[in-house]
């Protein structure tokens, strides 16, 4: 393939876009719409996932330390807990703090005569992955100086269930949308190519090699795909920011993941998907006309 030929493919690819402006517009429109639908759903899933992760990280295991230990020995239990694999951090929660907190919430008359000694020293342990909370709790229980480990099983199980549901539903929806999008996009490209079957037939009659016929369509396909990817990216960014800033923020304290944290993967996925759909759509469709 010499440089004249490569230049010809690109020139023809670009010309094809403008010469068949309506089908190019339809292809870009359909690919953009499909990317936006998939992108929006993925962003919803990412946010739900992020909320669940945040809730998981704020859920805690409460560890009671043996009353017989000195303060120094009780504190050293914390460093042993921190060394465990699934522990994000352990926070020292002395009996005085527990007593103060309890007193705040209780009628002072009832608390008369009590001292902080009625509470044990405690640790609040935050985990890296709540899925392994039971195993981590057993490891903590086995440490010397620990008398009781309280795992909030119901809450953790609920969070785990929510996470699993979100994962499965997201996967099913995204895959379904992907298949539907591919089908719609292939049909749009098929229509665009059908319009040019006569051109392909003439090329074959004059002795054009299959590659020569195919390449301008491939170039056209990937340019259209990339255009759709860029367009979808900017529309997605605009819609997401508008939704979070103007619609969600005034009515709810929910904090969505900022688009600034997501722009790179969103752009990469949109451009890659647009590119692949454009190229494969063209190649698959044109194959039919190149047979025989």
């Amino acid at each position, binding site marked *: 393939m*010499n440089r*004249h*030929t490569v230049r*010809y493919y690109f020139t023809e690819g670009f010309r094809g876009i403008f*010469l*068949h402006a309506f089908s190019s517009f339809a292809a870009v429109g359909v690919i953009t719409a499909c990317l936006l639908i998939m992108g929006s759903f993925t962003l919803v899933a990412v946010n739900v996932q992020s909320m669940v992760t945040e809730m998981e990280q704020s859920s805690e295991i409460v560890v009671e330390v043996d009353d017989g230990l000195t303060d120094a020995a009780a504190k050293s239990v914390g460093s042993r807990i921190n060394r465990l694999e699934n522990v994000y951090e352990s926070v020292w929660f002395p009996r005085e703090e527990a007593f103060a907190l309890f007193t705040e919430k209780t009628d002072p008359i009832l608390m008369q005569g009590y001292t902080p000694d009625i509470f044990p020293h405690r640790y609040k342990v935050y985990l890296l992955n709540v899925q392994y909370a039971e195993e981590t709790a057993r490891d903590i229980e086995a440490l010397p100086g620990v008398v009781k480990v309280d795992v909030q099983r119901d809450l953790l199980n609920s969070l785990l269930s929510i996470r699993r549901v979100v994962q499965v539903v997201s996967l099913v929806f995204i895959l379904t949308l992907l298949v539907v999008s591919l089908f719609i996009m292939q049909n749009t490209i098929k229509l665009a190519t059908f319009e040019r079957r*006569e*051109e392909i*037939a*003439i*090329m*074959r*009659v*004059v*002795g*054009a*090699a*299959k590659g*020569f016929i195919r390449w301008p369509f491939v170039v056209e396909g990937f340019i259209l795909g990339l255009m759709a990817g860029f367009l979808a990216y900017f529309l997605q960014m605009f819609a997401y920011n508008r939704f979070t800033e103007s619609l969600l923020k005034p009515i709810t304290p929910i904090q969505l993941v900022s688009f600034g944290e997501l722009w790179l993967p969103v752009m990469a996925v949109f451009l890659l998907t647009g590119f692949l759909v454009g190229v494969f759509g063209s190649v698959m469709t044109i194959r039919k006309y190149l047979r*025989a």
Partner: protein
Amino acid sequence: MTLRIDDGEFVFLVGPSGSGKSTIIKLLTSEIRPSEGKVMVNGYNINTIKPGAVPLLRRTLGVIFQDFRLIEKKNVFENVAFAMRAVGAAPREVKKRVPYVLDLVGLSHKARRRPYELSGGEQQRVAIARALINNPMVIIADEPTGNLDPARSLEIMTLLERINALGTTVLAVTHERELVNRFAKRVVAIDGGRIVYDRQGGYYAGEQRKPGARE
């Protein structure tokens, strides 16, 4: 059927509808393979030709159709040039040869026009220019005057005769009795897939009406 056409010949292939004329063209351009017998075109054996060699065979042929088959969205120059680009010619060669061939068919002044801006005869001349651009050994014209009035038909056939005089073999499939008889070239008539008449400077009586057929 045994049919041999030598280099530099001008042959009219005539016959009624369904006689096998289109099948012969499809065989010559390797659109279909022979079920039996042997077909050789410009040194290519159509019985055994590999798919990759089909474009190479077609580059030795220039095919002209009744309906011109021009690309509506390209102008005259581009319609001719793209056939040359399709065989890998450099832009410089294209710029040099296309004006020459357009001049040969008398259309150099309409190089920037689109097909819909041309008359039927002019469109067919563009198709002839496209067929000629790669200097083919054989021009195959499938009813080239089928969509034209008698004056334009005569022009096109005269143009094909001139091309033939320059050394290119011409095979013209036609129904036009007057044209065939006027040019007095070799006439091959087929019917039912068989050659029923083959004579240099031959005469074509036109399609025989079948008994009972309506006007």
